[in-house]
């Protein structure tokens, strides 16, 4: 188990700066998710932690030791790739066993550890198969199994669920959460999917163009996004972002309000508009409203709300749940 610290990290590929000066602490035993749009440098950061890339400047510490110049295999990490990176010519057992064989671990211990990993991941019936004979979810579990047997101090995951279908993805998400509960090792998990980030993390790191926008617990990011970018990125459906004129304040450039923090009425309210699409989802009704002054909004209403497309609606935001952002895109704490 170990804390991971990145100090003053910079990464350039030739003349392109992918990560400009970044500091981050991943607490011991945490499940930290790096989330951000594609190409923002998440994989690069993870690969620097793994030792597969060297930082242009700055240092990487794992468990208090500076490992910036250390080989990947000496860092006490393991990594699960999006492509699984299994060896097609080896059986499941040999794949899991690979690192232990290389490190000349005694046969008895190897067998024990492989059996333990297979038990945790329900891979026992598959140990003699080749990866080609497994489904996507099973391959993913083998890749995780290969990570577990090394008993690393830090687990690294690079978009491990991206190649799975939706149903399998949510199932694997639960399994990963359980895995973290049972082995309590530090995990750093990269994804572009904010739902994965919200459900898995106890610390989320939102990245944008190589920079960290905000670090915090999922609900912290949800309740108090520190920038417009985070506000727009975290939450589904997305937060409504409206022009500053929605509130009477000169410095406010953008006003954010989540769909569930808006009340709708047929007679009276602050923002008059017309419903364009109404989706009845059962428990909720999602209404798309074109507000006369402010443009399009999404509103989350109770399941049995009587509303149909073309109806006039009057919207009223919950004042205490408005998010205000200045010209620089940063959060402003104001009373309006």
């Amino acid at each position: 188990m170990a804390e991971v610290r990145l100090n003053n990290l910079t990464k350039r590929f030739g003349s392109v700066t992918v990560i400009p000066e970044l500091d981050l602490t991943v607490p011991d035993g945490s499940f930290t998710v790096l989330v951000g749009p594609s190409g923002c440098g998440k994989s690069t950061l993870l690969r620097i932690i793994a030792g597969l890339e060297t930082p242009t400047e700055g240092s990487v510490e794992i468990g208090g030791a500076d490992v910036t110049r250390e080989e990947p295999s000496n860092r006490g990490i393991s990594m699960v790739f999006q492509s699984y990176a299994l060896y097609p010519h080896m059986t499941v057992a040999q794949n899991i066993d690979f690192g232990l064989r290389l490190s000349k671990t005694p046969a008895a211990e190897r067998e024990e550890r492989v059996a333990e990993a297979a038990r945790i991941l329900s891979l026992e019936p598959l140990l003699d198969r080749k990866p080609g004979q497994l489904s996507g979810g099973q391959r993913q579990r083998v890749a995780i199994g290969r990570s577990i047997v090394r008993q690393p101090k830090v687990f690294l995951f690079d978009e491990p669920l991206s190649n799975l279908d939706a149903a399998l993805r949510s199932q694997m998400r639960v399994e990963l959460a359980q895995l973290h509960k049972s082995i309590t090792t530090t995990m750093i998990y990269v994804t572009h999917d904010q739902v994965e980030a919200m459900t898995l993390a106890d610390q989320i790191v939102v990245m944008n163009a190589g920079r960290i926008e905000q670090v915090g617990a999922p609900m912290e990011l949800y309740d108090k996004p520190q920038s417009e970018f985070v506000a727009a990125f975290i939450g589904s459906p997305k937060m409504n972002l409206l022009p500053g004129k929605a509130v009477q304040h000169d410095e406010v450039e953008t006003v954010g309000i989540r769909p569930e923090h808006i009340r709708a009425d047929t007679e009276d309210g602050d923002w008059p508009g017309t419903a364009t699409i109404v989706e009845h989802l059962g428990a909720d009704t999602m209404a798309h409203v074109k507000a006369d002054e402010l443009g399009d909004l999404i509103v989350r209403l109770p399941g049995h709300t009587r509303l149909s497309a073309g109806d006039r609606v009057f919207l009223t935001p919950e004042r205490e749940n408005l998010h205000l952002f200045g010209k620089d895109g940063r959060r402003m704490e104001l009373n309006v």
Partner: protein
Amino acid sequence: MPSTTDSQRMPLADRLRRGLSNGRITSVLILLPPALILFTLFVMLPLLESGYYAFFDWNGYGEPTDYVGLENFERIVGHSVFHTAAANTGKIIAVSLIVQMPFALLLALLIYRKTPTNAVFRLIFFLPYILAEVAAGLIWSFVFDGNYGVTASIAEAFGAESLFILADRDWAFVAILTVILWKYFGFHMMIYIAALQGVSNDQIEAARIEGATRLQVVRYVQIPAIKPAIAVSAFFAIIGALQVFDVIIPLTNGGPSNTTHTIVTYLYTFGLTRLNIGFGSAVGVILFAVAVTIAVFYQRVFMGRSES
């Protein structure tokens, strides 16, 4: 799928009609004959003809009339030069498999990554293969020349007696093996490079994380991943070795004392240049039989099964 079983149960006439209407059979009828005719005219007929000539004592002029049965084959089997030629062909196969392929693989592993320097090395290593065989032979005959060649200069520099390698019964064929190795390793190297570039980088990095050294990555990840390419390259090496001809003619022409013949130069020298077309045909039949046997056997054993 129900549609497949349907089409299997359908009477032939119906199947043919359906095939015609969806254009598949039509395209086969149009596209197959040219290839078939060319193959028959220029491959099958000459083969069958030489199979026929092999039973005659015939100088290539007029009709073969002098039927001799298996006499040509008996003469070949009893001819000591043929034994040497067959052994030399065997040596070429052995050197190709044991020396050339590992050497090509080593170079491929060094330069398979896509960098500008590697591109230059790739071109340099591939040059001998592009060069015409005869030109290569001439270049090397200069290198090996005992009077004014490179070996002569080296021998002189060491104050040694000047060497005539290509005229030396012990060393001439070693020189030829060297030239063959030099000429064709680039071809095998290219096959390996293409295959190595297809190996997933994630697999290699995963192995590095697991603690594999560079050599272990090669042994446990890269070589297993390019096994099919190695099988193909070995196949080409063997079939190519059976056909070695144009490297030898300009270098030694089979000499000294017929010690550097291969089966094909043997055929050429004792069949064609001496106007024993029947005899040459018989050598050709033997060579063809060996090649086909090896090809079929090899495909069955090494290239048939594919691990998925």
